């Protein structure tokens, strides 16, 4: 047998966990906020509702968490879904249109029908993506680009180029209301995350998805119905996006075909990658994705709280993202460590080496 290195210490086990670096990054970002906002971590109960910056991050991050969740499974199969932003817009537009045209916008039935219309449409949109990718064999980035571009137009057609505002208490609850002291959006997204974890990890779905993404050829030879799985994943992603669309429009009580969910696909992809799921497909981590989405949301919050001028916001965000990605790359950390070690070595003169030392290449 192979000699085994000293039993892995618990510290090592933690640092090697896939969630370690995303968690560290999130913690550092949150701590950095503390320096500017001393009561950043404070959560207070007021009028039966919880308030505080942490709650805000979770609340405003909820749609991104949902979209990223769907994106995670798509990316696990080796694909990508660029159409989620448009789906967010379409879903919000359809729901708000239905409510605004209904005779009784405040009734639960109206809101449920609106949500049903939005989710049903998303199901269709996802199925189109799924068929294009799995059956027709179109590259995922192209297949979903179609809906990304066309979908924006569709959303504007639905809203007739206007912003549809609605007044409906049950609808307001989804994205802007409270339930059991918590913003309802947080509970809803937590529920969906939990259900997805259960669905993928207590069945064999997760394993099969990872296999399809990790080695599609081998997966076919092993008898996995890859086509069906891949198609399903795009449907799931669209459903998540539609739910996020309901949240976004509910929160502002309005549907804006132009701006709702704009660029959210990029944030979602970023969240998935920050969470440690490779864009090459294969192993995925839902926990990591949630951390990734929270990192991005915290970053947005930070930009406001420390008062970074709006024109430099994007540059600041990009800078942080680059640093985060570098820190998470094992190759980069190894290089950094080696550089540090060499610097220490050269700082301390030592006896001449018996043979000449030459670096091959750079």
């Amino acid at each position: 047998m192979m000699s085994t290195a000293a039993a892995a210490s618990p510290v090592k086990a933690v640092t090697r966990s896939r969630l370690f670096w995303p968690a560290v990054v999130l913690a550092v970002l949150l701590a950095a906020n503390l320096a500017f906002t001393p009561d950043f971590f404070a959560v207070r109960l007021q009028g039966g509702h919880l308030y505080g910056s942490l709650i805000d991050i979770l609340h405003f991050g909820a749609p991104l968490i949902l979209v990223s969740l769907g994106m995670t499974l798509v990316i696990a199969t080796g694909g990508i879904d660029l159409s989620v932003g448009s789906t967010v817009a379409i879903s919000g537009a359809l729901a708000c249109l239905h409510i605004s045209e209904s005779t009784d916008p405040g009734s639960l039935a109206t809101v449920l029908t609106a949500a049903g219309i939005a989710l049903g449409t998303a199901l269709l949109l996802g199925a189109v993506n799924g068929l294009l990718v799995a059956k027709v064999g179109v590259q995922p980035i192209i297949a979903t680009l179609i809906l990304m571009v066309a979908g924006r137009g569709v959303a504007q057609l639905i809203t007739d180029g206007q912003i549809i505002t609605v007044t409906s208490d049950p609808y307001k609850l989804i994205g802007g209301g409270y339930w059991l002291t918590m913003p309802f959006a947080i509970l809803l997204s937590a529920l969906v995350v939990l259900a997805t974890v259960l669905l993928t990890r207590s069945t064999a779905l997760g394993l099969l998805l990872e296999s399809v993404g990790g080695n599609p050829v081998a997966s076919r030879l092993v008898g996995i119905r890859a086509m069906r799985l891949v198609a399903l994943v795009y449907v799931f992603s669209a459903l998540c996006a539609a739910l996020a669309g309901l949240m976004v429009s509910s929160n502002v009580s309005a549907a804006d075909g132009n701006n709702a969910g704009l660029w959210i696909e990029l944030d979602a992809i970023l969240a998935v990658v920050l969470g440690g799921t490779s864009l090459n497909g294969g192993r995925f981590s839902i926990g990591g994705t949630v951390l990734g989405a929270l990192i991005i949301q915290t970053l947005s919050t930070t930009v406001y709280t420390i008062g970074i001028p709006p024109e430099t916001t994007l540059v600041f965000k990009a800078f942080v993202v680059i640093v985060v990605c570098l820190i998470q790359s094992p190759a980069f950390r190894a290089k950094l460590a080696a550089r540090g070690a060499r610097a220490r070595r050269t700082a301390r003169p030592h006896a001449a080496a018996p043979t000449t030392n030459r670096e091959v290449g750079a």
Partner: protein
Amino acid sequence: MRQQPVLEVRGIRKEFPGVVALDGVDFRLFPGEVHALMGENGAGKSTLIKVLTGVHPSDGGEVVLAGERVRIAGPLQAQQAGISTVYQEVNLCPNLSVAENIFIGREPRRFGLIDWPAMRRRAAELVRELELDVDVSAPLNSYSIAVQQLVAIVRAVDVSAKVLILDEPTSSLDRDEVRQLFAVMRRLRDQGVAILFVSHFLDQVYEICDRMTVLRNGRLEGEYLTSELGQVELVSRMIGAELAGLDQLGGGKRRERTAPTGPAFLQADRLARRGAVEPYDLDIRPGEVIGLAGLLGSGRTEAARLLFGADQSDGGTLRIEGTVTALRSPRDAIARGIAFCSENRKTEGLVGELTVRENIVLALQAARGWTRPLSRTAQDAYALKWIRALDIRPGNPEALVRNLSGGNQQKVLLARWLITDPKLLILDEPTRGIDIGAKAEIQKLVANLAEEGMAVLFISAELEEVLRLSHRVGVLRDHRMVAQLDNDGGLTPERVMATIASGAHA
């Protein structure tokens, strides 16, 4: 020794999380020698090579190249320093052409632009030198793993290097290609190139190598002259135990058994696929082992793939247990009790980033569907059982498959199909890269499974192995099944070779 070594390592150490792969290994390579690196699966051969070529940074020790201590930062630097390598797993670009793969990174240029005609011409010459029949402008992935391996070799020997490293270059080649390769190796050796050669075929090692270094469990066992260490001795150095003789490893006599009679499990009747294999007939009964022999590219794999639904046939009929069946996908075939262990473990077999356990249960789980997951206890039981039965090392079910040594990966692939308990097991080069001890174990296992009633289709470039196991041998030549020979004791590798050569019933 007469000269200064061209390459020398001292006290090399390499640790992976949880494993010490190399522990204080010394190794010397002299100009103008062919040097074998020997050891069991997982002994650390490939790791040593990867440390030498800068794929992995070492955790200790030093590398001396032509008298100078060097730090090799990566494969490119190794190449620039005159070390040319063929790694165990072919790492070329599958969708580029053969010619492009041979010249990638050093394309012939004219006026600053790539000179395509010159590149194709040069590539064709190089390929012809190995007496290979390939179209250099065809994409690499249109060829079998053996041809891909040869292309990697062509590429490596063409860059004029001081050191040539070949990690199991012959694992899927048959005699002729091996002979061709050895001729090239001898020529290079005579020009003063130092060659490091890894192979689990002892005959090849004794034919071509001057000296050898034996590794065991990541430690240096010793350095020997080939002429001074017998095969039996070598094997006991490798496994660290005394051996009565090579026969103990199952290298000896073939099994005398009468071919089972009765209804066939599978009957192929004029089954064909245009461009892949001409119409052929084949009956396989429960308990029967059918071998497929033929040269590289003769259509063995293609014939087998039709029986698994991996490719669709476009002619003839297939009967499974008496009923005519069209296999539309591998899934269909699996549902009817057929398993297919592909020759190409990397691209068609394993999912590298999944664990050993997950890879082992994958086929079984896929057959059950995602709603009926195997319990974790069941998965662990399967994994542990086969880790023990096939001696997969390290014996950790949670190790990532891509971190296993080549031979151990092959065992994982085998285990995956064995747990599905198939009625027909198609094995395409199942012992590729497997060490001599484990190979005997696997052969014994296949024979036992057949005795218990499993039908087996066994493909191997190693004729001895085919003859040892099969009741009948189908001979293919130019995508055509030219003969089916009964293996009744009188069948010798020579007769099979003669049949292949003449392409007629012998």
